[in-house]
């Protein structure tokens, strides 16, 4: 188990290093450059050259990358001149807020999607299944910005019960102090997730209900309820674990569209604005954070698998 973890963490490190190299290269090969973006159109060539020299942008890229990694290891993700704050600071302001939104919507999605998927599987090819399938497809096919707009129109214009804008608080506590503002962005995010998750749960449950072990369970004279909940559900939830693992990076990156739509000052918005302004330090910093989250998410999913499925052995030690 320990050896397995060490092995996986080693692999994770390699992936993260590769991601930083690629991100670094792409960003520095882009035309325009950071100097022009930072100093504006009026800057003279001398000013640009001086800026590049100060920042080390005139050195060979391999050297620049070396410097970048060195700073990275000291927890320094760089400094954003456009925001006039360090990248670490910029991210640490927004990340907790994004996580609040993502966690809430994921929880909501799981709580609703699992029962929906189970109902569909148990009543498959009958009206509850068809109804939920149709709604899922509708939700899945609707662009999220359109869904968000419809939500705003419906619940804050036509029937004004909720604010159209997400909480603007600076800290997590302030954000949570305005729960009404969180409802629309959370629900908007959750709807698509529910559609996806319930499909996975449905098909996994349908497969499992046709397995021989379920027939064995029925032969013991168990009630249908017990057959579904005690025997089938656990095995039917394995795909959700994979989905959750894949969802972890989204927890960090934030939902770009929804954050913009509801004007929520989270990671998604930060990344989007940095991309528009060529704010390289922010872009790189966010990319590194997300790549770490992706790798960790895959690892967490594997560990969860081992925890719930006894057939999965995490080899690498004598356990």
């Amino acid at each position, binding site marked *: 188990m320990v050896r397995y973890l060490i092995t996986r963490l080693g692999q994770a490190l390699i992936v993260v290093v590769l991601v930083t190299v690629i991100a670094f290269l792409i960003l520095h090969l882009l035309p325009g450059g950071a100097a022009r973006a930072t100093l504006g159109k009026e800057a003279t060539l001398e000013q640009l050259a001086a800026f590049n020299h100060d920042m080390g942008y005139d050195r060979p890229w391999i050297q620049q990358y070396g410097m970048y990694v060195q700073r990275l290891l000291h927890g320094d993700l760089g400094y954003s001149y456009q925001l006039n704050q360090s990248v670490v600071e910029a991210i640490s302001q927004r990340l907790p807020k994004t996580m609040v939104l993502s966690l809430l919507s994921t929880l909501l999605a799981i709580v609703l999607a699992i029962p929906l998927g189970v109902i569909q599987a148990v009543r498959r090819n009958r009206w509850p299944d068809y109804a939920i399938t149709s709604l899922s497809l509708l939700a899945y096919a609707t662009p999220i910005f359109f869904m968000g707009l419809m939500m705003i129109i419906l619940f804050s214009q036509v029937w004004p019960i909720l604010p159209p804008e997400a909480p603007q608080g600076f800290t997590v506590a302030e954000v949570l102090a305005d729960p009404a503002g969180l409802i629309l962005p959370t629900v908007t995010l959750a709807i698509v997730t529910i559609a996806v998750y319930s499909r996975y749960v449905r098909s996994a449950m349908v497969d499992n209900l046709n397995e021989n072990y379920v027939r064995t369970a029925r*032969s013991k*004279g168990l009630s249908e309820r017990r057959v579904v909940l005690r025997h089938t559900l656990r095995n039917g939830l394995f795909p959700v674990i994979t989905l959750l693992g894949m969802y972890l990076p989204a927890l960090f990156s934030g939902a770009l569209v929804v954050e913009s739509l509801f004007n929520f000052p989270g990671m998604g918005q930060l990344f989007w604005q940095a991309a528009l302004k060529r704010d390289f330090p922010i872009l790189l910093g966010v990319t590194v954070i997300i790549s770490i989250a992706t790798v960790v998410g895959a690892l967490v999913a594997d560990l969860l698998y081992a925890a719930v499925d006894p057939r999965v052995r995490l080899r690498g030690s004598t356990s």
Partner: protein
Amino acid sequence: MSESTVRKSSAGQPAAVQPLLELRDLDTDIALRRGTVHALDGVSLEVMPGETLGVVGESGSGKTMTALSIMGLLPPGGRVSGGQILFEGRDLRSLPADEVRRTRGVRMGMVFQDPLTSLNPTMRIGVQVAEPLRVHERVGRAEARDRAIEILRRVGMPRPERIVDNYPHELSGGMRQRVAIAMALVCSPRLLIADEPTTALDVTTQRQILELIDDLREEFGMAVILVTHDLGVIAGRADRVAVMYAGRVVETAATEQLFRSPRHRYTEALLEALPESAIRESGAHARLYSIPGLPPDLSRPLTGCRFAPRCRHVTDECRTTDVTLSTGEHQHACLHPVPAAPAAPVTLPAPVRVEPAPEPAATTAKAGQPAATPVLSVRELVKNYAAHGGGLLRRTAGQVSAVAGVSFEVGPGETFGLVGESGCGKSTVGRLAVGLERPTAGQIMLDGVDIASLTGRERRRMHRQVQLMFQDSYAAMNPRMRVDAILAEPLEIQKVGDGTARRARIATLLDQVGLSRRVLERYPHEFSGGQLQRIGLARSLALQPRLIVGDEPVSALDVSIQAQVLNLMRDLQRELGLAYVFISHDLSVVDYMADRIGVMYLGKLVEVGPARDVVRAARHPYTQALIDAVPSITPNATAARDGVTIRGELPSAVNPPTGCRFRTRCPLAQEICETEPPLAGDGHQVACHFPLRPESSEASARAGAAA
């Protein structure tokens, strides 16, 4: 109630005891998208307390549907549409659902075919076994666990107090089937339904499980319904037998009566189609009786006897008259039954093992022909696979010794049978012989040429000589290719002839395997198992090989279809001078097909010799155990055997036992067995320090003459 009363059917008087279970005119339909299949049509059966009723039939006969109807476990779309299921005098169809569920959970138990998939993979053994107690008897957690341990001990599970905390994947197939049996018995049911309980297991394990069910039946005083396709299993275990065909019971009688004197023409034909019968009847390798055609489509309305289209004795009357079961002890639904055998007790044919081996057959002489170069010669063949243990670093943790120094030869036109249980390496030998895998060490010679000495192109040409025939031909064909493309592919790959020549060749192939030209435009899924095996055989023949390696070629087929394919393989051998390596776990089939037999155990060849010598006068204890475990249609033959019984499980091939690999399970093992015995002998070789019998003088003389 005297539960253990067994109805003595030969006594000719009805027993005073009420039947435990009675099916009256049971109809079961299964609604599918393309129509409704009438899976059962008026099935009537009785099971007396304490009795074992064998239900036997081929696939689609309705035997499993009968079991599932009783248990209320029909697949989606299935429902019992008529008749009564009387259990302990009450009709399960008219009881409230809760009551029925309780009855099925407590008073009945069921064991299914595939132990590998029949247990919940993520639930501990103890929890699964004790679940009926917890649900139906409201037993507490601790007591449930104790009772789970107790019942596991009674089904012969070693170390049950540890096993309860294990998960199913940690147990072997045989052990899992014991768990399934324990689970079915935990509430002490009156009736156990076992649906093909040993079909997925090896013969030696099968024997252990069948004996366990027999013992438990007496111990619990319960009745057993044993559903199987295997007539041998039924003959050895059942008190009475019901033969099913196309959703109906066609004959029912006491076991001995039925096998001694079958009345229905279908039963008669089925028994004749067994390789065992052919060997016993004529001594030599006679042609098998094969039932032509296929069972009827049960989604169509049927009139008359359902076996009529395939029957030798059919008359017009059969096609129009609906025959019902006759009354009495021996019931049959046949207008032209086999004449009844004399009432006097007939001496049963002696069990196969006791038979002498008198046959100086032409086949064995052929095998020993000195001049001919062997088509295939394998010397000291070794194949190891790396066993990975190091997680994602994939460090090699050891080696799986799949084949460990196997040598044999196959002469032109000869059939070499390779038998052994799963995991013994017989399939690996086959794959090595056809060049699908490369050996770790050792030599493979085709027609006297060492294939290791050949380069890519020559090697490919050489491999034309050897072709493979698969167990599951459907899986071995591209489902998106038509039969014409499937048959043309080997010719295209080897660049044989032009389009016209290839078409002509394909037409010849179809004639050879007895298929019409119309099959060419169809896809694999449109064919039955027997037809697919014919197409598979045709494909193997396309390049005119001299040797075909058949890996369990008839194991997935019903008896009647199996006979068709075996006959075809024989005919082609005679016409084309083919040699076969016939790999199978089924000793009776190998016995029928092979001139010489090699017995494998855990990667080693433990015995090689002429087929009749190996089967009738086995020299290795393992071979004898294997032979003793094979169920025979001679009633009680299995019970009468007192030969070698092996216990326990196959050791891991990662660290196989040193010396003789069988010594860990061998009743005769002594210290010397820690050194490896060589394969010794002239014509009938054995690798054993304590062979059961010396080589028969005939065998060595034959070998001497050949040398």
